[in-house]
């Protein structure tokens, strides 16, 4: 069977150093059409540099970086991308409609104004000056600027910082719509539930390298932890000493237990306290998986 994949962006053996510090250390990454990739990693893992390389903002010291098969600094490649950066102070005195008109003018075949406004949900802000908008509203305008050029690849750097839950959900819906239309997305975020809600593929960076690349489920399965929560009189310290229990803490009225053998621990738990109530068993979320993975790496580094 032959599968044809369209590569929209790639890094091959990319290395970038800043004053002796290696920010990106031989990174290999390939992004395909219609794929939503979440780029995760602790601070200083190389996320910003990776994005910078793909946008042509920084030059790799070694390796190859391509955007639509071209040099990212080639304007023809950048005409196919949309960008939402983490911090960009847009001209405060310009109206939202003027900012949109300016950004649309950079692209060969931008969306119509109506389409952009509808996708980003910014109809009520069009005539307002940018400085008069709240932080969350400004983020939505920046999202509109990112998608107004009808890009095939969208870079979203911490897109929902400063947004309320409602606005965040709406943005997620818009992102899913864009992906359904075949747009690829590179997303960096500190909210792991955001990556969990959106990403088909999660890439974890640490020390400028890819340490994990796969689906959300694959990343989760790397840590086989389960969380058990229940209301019981049992002593947390005593439970923590049981075999196969990684940890146990009191959280308010309930006891929270982490284990890699939920069935085993549950049986003993029910035996030990017949009065036990409010039982809840959850698989480790992306947040736990991510923490476990990065802790693991930190320990390896200390050992080395």
């Amino acid at each position, binding site marked *: *069977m*032959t*599968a*044809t*994949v*369209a*590569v*929209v962006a790639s890094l091959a053996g990319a290395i970038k150093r800043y004053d002796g510090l290696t920010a990106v250390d031989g990174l290999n990454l390939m992004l395909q*059409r219609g794929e939503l990739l979440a780029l995760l990693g602790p601070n200083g893992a190389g996320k910003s540099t990776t994005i910078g390389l793909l*946008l*042509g*903002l*920084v030059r790799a010291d070694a390796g190859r970086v391509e955007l*639509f*098969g071209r040099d990212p600094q080639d*304007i*023809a490649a*950048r*005409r*196919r*991308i949309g*960008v939402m*950066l*983490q*911090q*960009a*102070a*847009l*001209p*405060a*005195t*310009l109206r939202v409609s*003027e*900012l949109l*008109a*300016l*950004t649309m*003018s*950079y*692209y*060969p075949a931008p969306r119509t104004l109506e389409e952009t406004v509808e996708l980003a949900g910014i109809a009520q802000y069009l005539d307002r000056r940018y400085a008069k908008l709240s932080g969350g509203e400004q983020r939505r305008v920046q999202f509109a600027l990112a998608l107004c*050029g009808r890009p*095939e690849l969208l*870079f979203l750097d911490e897109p929902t910082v400063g947004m309320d839950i409602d606005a965040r959900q709406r943005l997620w819906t818009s992102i899913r719509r864009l992906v359904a239309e075949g747009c690829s997305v590179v997303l960096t975020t500190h909210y792991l539930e955001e990556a969990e809600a959106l990403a088909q593929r999660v890439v974890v960076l640490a020390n400028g390298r890819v340490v994990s690349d796969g689906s959300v489920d694959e990343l989760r399965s790397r840590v086989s932890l389960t969380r058990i929560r229940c209301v019981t009189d049992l002593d947390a310290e005593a439970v923590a000493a049981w075999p196969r229990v990684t940890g146990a803490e009191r959280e308010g009225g309930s006891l929270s237990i982490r284990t890699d053998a939920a069935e085993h621990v549950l049986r003993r738990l029910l035996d030990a306290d017949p009065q036990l109530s409010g039982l809840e068993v959850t698989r480790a979320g992306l947040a736990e998986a991510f923490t476990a993975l990065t802790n693991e790496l930190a320990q390896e580094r200390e050992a080395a």
Partner: protein
Amino acid sequence: MNTLHVADAPRSIDHAMPWQRVLGAYVAEARSECLRYLRAPGFMLPVMLFPTMFYLLFGIVMNHNAPGDVPRYLLASYAVFGVMSPGLFGFGVSLAAERENGLLTLKRALPMPPGAYLLGKMLMAMLAAGGVVLLLLAMATGLGHVPLSAGQGMRLLLTGMLGVLPFCALGMLVGAYVKGQGAPGVLNLIYLPMSFLSGLWIPLAMLPATLQRLAPIWPSAHLQPLALSAVGLGKDALWPHVLALAGYGLVFFMLAARRLRRVG
């Protein structure tokens, strides 16, 4: 076995921009740049009024009944002093601020046509320089009764609007090296001493001989003869000064552009 055929995204869609749209992007950029400053007079107005006040105090009030060519000499000198300000500050301070607040990074990531950002700022500085010269002309004729023909006024305006360009390049160079809040201080350290040393406040002939010999180093010392000639004074050949200004502008611009390409 699965084989994976890796292909580049189809290039069949033509992503070239028709030239009309590229031109439109340049126009949109310049329009936005001018609009944002017109709506925020707090930035450009002091830049324009500072040298204007100087002319009012030292060129008109202090020299009210000056004899002969002195009033026209002062007008030309303060016009040079005046147009340096929007060039150095209008360009340098805003570039330094936008390098710090992330706007320049975003513009570099977006498919903005090359140089549109700088052209927009240049146009804004030229308009502000034109505004300064018009203000000076209005004061010179209205308050100072400086004898001046319409042609001379037009030529001074043109000299100012084009003469601002090498100072834009110098402002750009400073803005490319100094980020954010540090830029105004550095620019003042260049602006005020350079004005004095090139004889804009006190005629060169009255400065110590060493300073007179050093004067050709300063770009402003080359713009002054052009401004003097515009108002009908001075008999020097003008082309060496034009060449010197063009040279300075080009060198400053190249150094700044190199720095911006590398560091951003």
